[in-house]
């Protein structure tokens, strides 16, 4: 097969048809040859043999007829009939003559003719004799005549027959030859045809198989290249120099080219990858930077604003005051912008979530409205709101976000309106609420409207110059609305005004959801707790007020509380009294060592000791963290008496089944005394003391937080909130919660207002309580007084709050002079803060 290797496929493919063509030509020429042979034979038969054969056959019949005619003439005894026979004879003679003309060998026929002549003359003679004789049987006398006649007849007849048979033979031979020629054509055609077909198939296979193998080799190589990680090393080996050879050569050089460009691509891709990670990192750093910066900027901003407030309180001349106001306005504006950026980066990072709660819708709207009223009125705008078909008072919404959207849109409207009005309409249609904020401001054309809700965009650049702003407000609004599954759009006309509309679906809820629904069977719980066997518990809590609360709540119980001001103290205490301790209360946020760490250390020492976390960290993440640290249960701050009692019982009394408590919905008032008293187990004295010290501690909260760093401030607000909740200062608690969650100026303002309200409320009440508490006091001797004072000193030295309380209560019933009274007030203050040593100093000094 080697010699075929360099023949092109095209030529190879030509072989089969070529062979077919050659075979066809062979068949054609053979057919022509055989056909002409057959035709020649048939022609000969037609032209020569057949007429002679016919004549010969006719002659035999004529001969028989002649003989019969003689026989008849003899039988009929008619001599004249003999003459008639010569007519038959002349016909026979004519035939014989024509045969002589046609025949190739004339002698043969002459012989026949001579014999016939001999026979004829003899039979004529015999016949005449027989006719003439009277009795035919007399012929018997001439013995030889008749046998001779018969002999002659037979001989002549045989010669005729023989001649005819010869002709017949030739006729048959020629016909056979012709038929054979035709048969030959058929068989030869068939043979060559089949042979040709087989040969074609075989040759085609021989040619096609190597081609197919080569092509499949090429295909497999192509497949190898088409894989995810192409194998460029794969080369095609095909030594034949046909078309496939050319293709393979081209393909191999193509592979090399592809590899080159693939490598190039790969390199570019790697470079791009590096660039991409760089870019991603940069974006991440940018977001982080933005978030950090906003946060970091906010702290000094708070400082600036706070200090400004303090400066404004000092004596300033009119010009200075004016400047200060301008500075304050700028600072507030800057703070707003920073808050916007923080919000936006939170949304971008997907860190903002929607928290739905049962809320008075109208309250949210009106609060927002009140907040902005000032600035609208300052610009001399009419500022109104209107409800249409708003029938459900209570809905499940994220009030914070709704108010944020409304604030944004309303302040925008005020910003861009120089005269006329800004109005808010709320329309309820089943569960869909449509909020429309209309203004008579500068308005926008449709081009500007299209760009409106994109981040960092305002109607146009000049607008930014004229009105300022980051252009984030509407983007934030849009994101928030979409997060609440709503939609927002704008309808506006240039120089006429704009209407911003957004639609949200709110679920209605019953007013009951808003009210307090807890059912406490506190008395039973208390009785049970009183009956438990005496035990010790550790209270790890850095906040004195919380310590006081727990102490007073467990006063009547056979439970001794060991105080720990931080985690490490708690751990040490536990190690010391390990066997006596039955329970540990653990605040999670403490200085030095926090609750998580302390819990995990204790958990390592003892697997079974119950640890109950007391924290305001309601986040799930924190719950998981404390669980990992080994905390058994969480009690939320503000401490709920019921929860505290039931938790103790749950862990100390094994057979106690805790009742599930429901989240208490706060009644919306400045001070909910009932709630506050509940937290302190209706101890009015303790409650009043706590209210007072709460005021003392937090009266300067707003200036205090300005000096704190972020984490300090967070802890401070957290505690502040916890205390306000415990004491039932509901409004303050609510706003502090909001403020803790979202540290911005608006929330701070709310807190400030709530705190001021609380202060006013307390002042009013204090006067009344003071008059109430001015009871009839006992007059006692100096010795007795000294004894009591010594008792107080002893109790203070012993660090036993219970005892101290008893003594102080005793003193309160005694009429004492003003100096001592003042001293005692200081002592009480210190005692309230568990500063027993200082109290002793005051008492001694």
């Amino acid at each position, binding site marked *: 097969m080697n010699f075929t290797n360099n023949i092109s496929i095209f030529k190879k493919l030509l072989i089969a048809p070529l062979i077919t063509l050659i075979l066809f030509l062979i068949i054609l020429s053979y057919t022509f040859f055989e056909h002409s042979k057959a035709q020649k034979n048939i022609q000969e038969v037609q032209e020569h043999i057949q007429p002679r054969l016919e004549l010969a056959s006719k002659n035999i019949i004529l001969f028989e007829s002649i*003989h*019969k005619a003689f026989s008849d003439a003899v039988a009929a005894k008619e001599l004249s009939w003999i003459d008639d026979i010569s007519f038959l004879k002349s016909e026979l003679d004519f035939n014989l003559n024509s045969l002589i003309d046609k025949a190739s060998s004339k002698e043969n026929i002459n012989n026949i003719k001579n014999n016939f002549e001999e026979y004829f003359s003899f039979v004529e003679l015999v016949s005449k004799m*027989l006719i003439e004789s009277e009795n*035919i*049987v007399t*012929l*018997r*006398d001439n013995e030889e005549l008749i046998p001779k*006649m018969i002999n002659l007849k037979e001989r002549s007849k045989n010669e005729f027959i023989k001649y005819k048979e010869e002709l017949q033979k030739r006729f048959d031979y020629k016909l056979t030859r012709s038929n054979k020629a035709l048969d030959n054509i058929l068989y030869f055609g068939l043979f060559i045809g089949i042979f040709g077909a087989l040969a074609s198939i075989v040759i085609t296979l021989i040619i096609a198989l190597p081609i197919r193998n080569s092509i499949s080799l090429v295909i497999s190589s192509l497949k190898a290249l088409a894989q995810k990680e192409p194998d460029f090393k794969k080369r095609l080996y095909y030594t034949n120099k046909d078309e496939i050879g050319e293709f393979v050569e081209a393909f191999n050089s193509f592979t090399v080219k592809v590899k080159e460009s693939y490598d190039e691509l790969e390199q570019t891709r790697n470079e791009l990858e590096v660039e991409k990670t760089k870019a991603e990192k940069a974006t991440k750093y940018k977001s982080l930077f933005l978030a950090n910066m906003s946060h970091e900027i906010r702290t000094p901003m708070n400082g600036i604003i706070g200090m400004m407030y303090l400066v404004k309180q000092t004596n300033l001349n009119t010009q200075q005051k004016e400047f200060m106001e301008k500075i304050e306005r700028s600072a507030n504006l800057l703070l707003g912008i920073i808050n916007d950026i923080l919000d936006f980066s939170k949304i971008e990072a997907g860190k903002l979530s929607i928290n739905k709660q049962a809320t008075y819708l109208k309250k949210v709207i009106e609060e927002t409205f009140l907040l902005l009223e000032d600035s609208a009125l300052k610009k001399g705008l009419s500022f109104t709101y209107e409800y249409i078909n708003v029938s459900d008072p209570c809905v499940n919404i994220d009030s914070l976000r709704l108010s944020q959207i409304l604030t944004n849109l309303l302040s925008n409207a005020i910003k861009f309106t120089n005269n006329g009005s800004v109005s808010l309409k709320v329309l309820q249609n089943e569960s869909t609420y449509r909020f429309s904020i209309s203004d008579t401001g500068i308005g926008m054309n449709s081009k500007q409207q299209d760009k409106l809700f994109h981040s960092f965009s305002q109607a146009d650049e000049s607008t930014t110059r004229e009105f300022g702003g980051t252009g984030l407000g509407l983007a934030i609004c849009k994101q928030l609305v979409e997060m609440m599954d709503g939609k927002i759009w704008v309808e506006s006309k240039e120089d006429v005004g704009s209407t911003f509309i957004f639609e949200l679906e709110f679920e209605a809820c019953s007013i009951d959801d808003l009210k307090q629904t807890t059912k406490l069977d506190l008395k039973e719980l208390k009785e049970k707790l009183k009956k438990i066997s005496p035990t010790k518990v550790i209270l790890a809590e850095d906040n004195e007020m919380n310590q006081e609360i727990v102490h007073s709540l467990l006063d009547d119980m056979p439970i001794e509380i060991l105080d720990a001001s931080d985690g490490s103290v708690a751990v040490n205490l536990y190690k010391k009294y390990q066997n006596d301790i039955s329970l540990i209360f653990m605040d999670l946020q403490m200085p030095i060592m926090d609750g998580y760490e302390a819990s995990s250390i204790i958990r390592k020492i003892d697997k079974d000791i119950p640890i109950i976390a007391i924290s305001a960290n309601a986040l799930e993440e924190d719950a998981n963290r404390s669980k990992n640290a080994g905390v058994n249960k969480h009690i939320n701050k503000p401490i709920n008496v019921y929860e505290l009692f039931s938790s103790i019982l749950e862990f100390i009394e094994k057979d106690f089944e805790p009742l599930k408590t429901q989240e208490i919905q706060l009644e919306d008032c400045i001070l909910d005394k009932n709630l506050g008293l509940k937290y302190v187990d209706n101890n009015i004295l303790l409650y009043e003391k706590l209210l007072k010290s709460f005021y003392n501690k937090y009266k300067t909260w707003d200036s205090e937080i300005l000096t704190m760093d972020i984490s300090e401030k967070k802890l401070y607000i957290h505690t502040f909130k916890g205390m306000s909740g415990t004491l039932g200062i509901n409004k303050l608690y609510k706003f502090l919660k909001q403020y803790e969650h979202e540290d911005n100026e608006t929330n701070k303002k709310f807190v400030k207002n709530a705190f001021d309200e609380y202060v006013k409320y307390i002042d009013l009440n204090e006067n009344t309580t003071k008059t109430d508490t001015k009871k009839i006091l006992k007059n006692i001797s100096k010795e007795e007084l000294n004894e009591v004072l010594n008792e107080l000193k002893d109790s203070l030295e012993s660090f036993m709050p219970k005892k101290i309380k008893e003594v102080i209560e005793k003193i309160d019933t005694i009429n004492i002079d003003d100096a001592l009274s003042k001293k005692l007030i200081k002592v009480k203050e210190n005692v309230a803060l568990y500063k027993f040593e200082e109290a002793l100093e005051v008492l001694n000094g």
Partner: protein
Amino acid sequence: MKKLVLIFLTSILLFASNDMVVVTNTSVVEKLSKSEVKRLFLSKTNKVHNINIKVVELSENGEKDKFYKQISGKSKSQLRSYWTRLIFTGKARPPKQVNNMQELLKEMKKSEVIVTYLPKNKVTKQMKIVYTLND
């Protein structure tokens, strides 16, 4: 009675007429049937009971036509045509002709089995009647 008369009359006629008989020279042939006689004399066979038989005929025989008419039912011209056909086809030949009684007797003395027909009165002692023709 009628039957008797008929037998009588026929016996008279038999004696009165010169009846033709078929005779032979040997005792090999016992008797011939009418069809055997017909076949022998029309040259359709030359064997009876596997015995070769030579048929001879007196050429001067006035009863010739009568004989053939009786055995074959053929007239003189029919017989001529019959023989002509046989002759021209060469299939058979008519019986051998003898001219007189001496020649016949001479023939009869040969060892061959000879069969011929004669009037009854000409039958000799050497001859045996194998068939009798009746009118």
